């Protein structure tokens, strides 16, 4: 009977309740007439029930529940504080362009000139000034980055006019953390320029937020100023992957708008 050949697959899917009704009936019919397959299924059922029993975890500690509630309270307070400060919010110039890109940027924080950028921001600014050779160029960049750097793709633009030139890994990373760089050729306004995006892993809490908070769609980004005067836009995702956008040739408000046109802030 042909089912014997696939008994590993079938018995497992059967025990995990992944078979369609018809497949289940076929297997059950087969089991009544094949002792070998029946024995195998019973062995797997026994193993499975042992594994499932063994995996039961101890109860969640009450202290953890309390800790979680406290963390969420803190988060709520920080958010409410940010909302109260929105007296300073205003829309960036060029609202027609923003509407076209369906991205609305709001400054939600107050620029603090006294706050110094993290060391990693300065290191990043320095790296982009070196002319390091690209390790990959053109259309294969995205795939190459996924294989060699991170499972996440480098940011891409939701409309034509911005093309990936290429990318490379950064030797030694940024402050000991893995980092990569992607360069884009951007021509949205008839004035082409180069945009550099640095991707750095393991950004810590509070890092890359020392500057003005900007809300782009539903994401909060920050406008940072490195010690060398260069301004850049930072964004840190849920997995602590940090993205730093640099385009020294364009005003910072244009750079913010540009970030609003990447898939980082688009629909999930």
């Amino acid at each position, binding site marked *: 009977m042909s089912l014997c050949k696939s008994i590993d697959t079938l018995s497992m899917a059967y025990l995990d309740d992944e078979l369609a009704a018809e497949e289940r009936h076929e297997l059950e019919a087969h089991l009544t007439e094949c002792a070998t397959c029946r024995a195998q299924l019973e062995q797997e059922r026994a*193993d499975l029930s042992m594994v499932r029993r063994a995996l039961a975890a*101890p109860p969640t500690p009450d202290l953890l529940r309390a800790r979680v509630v406290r963390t969420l309270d803190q988060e709520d307070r920080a958010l409410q504080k940010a909302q109260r400060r929105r007296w300073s919010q205003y829309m960036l110039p060029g609202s027609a362009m923003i509407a076209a890109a369906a991205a609305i940027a709001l400054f939600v924080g107050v620029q603090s000139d006294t706050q110094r950028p993290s060391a990693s921001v300065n290191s990043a600014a320095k790296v982009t000034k070196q002319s390091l050779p690209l390790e990959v160029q053109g259309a294969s960049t995205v795939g190459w980055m996924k294989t060699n750097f991170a499972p996440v793709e480098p940011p891409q633009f939701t409309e034509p006019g911005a093309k990936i030139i290429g990318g490379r890994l950064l030797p030694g990373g940024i402050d000991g953390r893995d980092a990569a760089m992607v360069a884009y050729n951007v021509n949205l306004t008839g004035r082409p320029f180069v945009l550099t995006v640095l991707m750095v892993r393991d950004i810590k809490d509070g890092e890359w937020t020392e500057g003005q908070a900007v809300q782009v769609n539903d994401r909060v980004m920050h406008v940072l100023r490195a010690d060398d005067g260069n301004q850049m836009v930072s964004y840190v995702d849920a997995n602590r992957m940090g993205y730093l956008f640099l385009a020294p040739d364009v005003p910072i408000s244009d750079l913010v708008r540009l970030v609003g046109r990447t898939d980082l802030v688009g629909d999930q």
Partner: protein
Amino acid sequence: MLAVKQKRIEFERQALVHLDAMYGAAYRLTRNPRDAEDLVQDALLRAYRFWDSFQQDSNCKAWLLRIVTNTFINEYQRRKRSREVLDAATSEQSATDGVLVHAEANDKQSPEKAMLLSSVSDDVQRALEQLPDDFRTAVILCDMQGLSYKEIAEIMECPVGTVMSRLFRGRKLLAAALREFAVAEGYVKKSNDTEAKAATLDLEKYRAEKKAREGSQ
């Protein structure tokens, strides 16, 4: 202000009810109660920050477990990388000293390993320790959390067939290790029958082949 309150209420109603599931998964992934608590707290805060991106009609538990798994993988990979660098430096040092340190002996002495052994008295945790990461994750998500093959495939970013193979081999290894622990409390020697055969399991493939056979009849 209202939006903040509303978000909190929604989050507590839909996400916080899965705290036990998250803690259970974290406990088995990290194999250490303290790390598990940190991982859950970290993952929940991320989930709260990204609550807007949760699609309301999808499985919240699977979404949360995805965040737990990803957070764990990222943290773990970082620690593992720094450990590898350290290990490489140690072996180089040992080689130049003219003393060859066996990799396994080295491993036993590492503070992390020592801490793990002292803090975990649980056979199951030790049995899990022996599984390759991918196998362990698949088994935890399926047999502990009851996620479907498809949900696990999405979390682990691999085909359903790969999930099935990992599950199959992970369960075999785990069952064998548990049996051995039961026999020889405290010490496990890897015996040949703990090696699961390199199974290729794929329900999709089975279905395709079946369809082809039926078509040719």
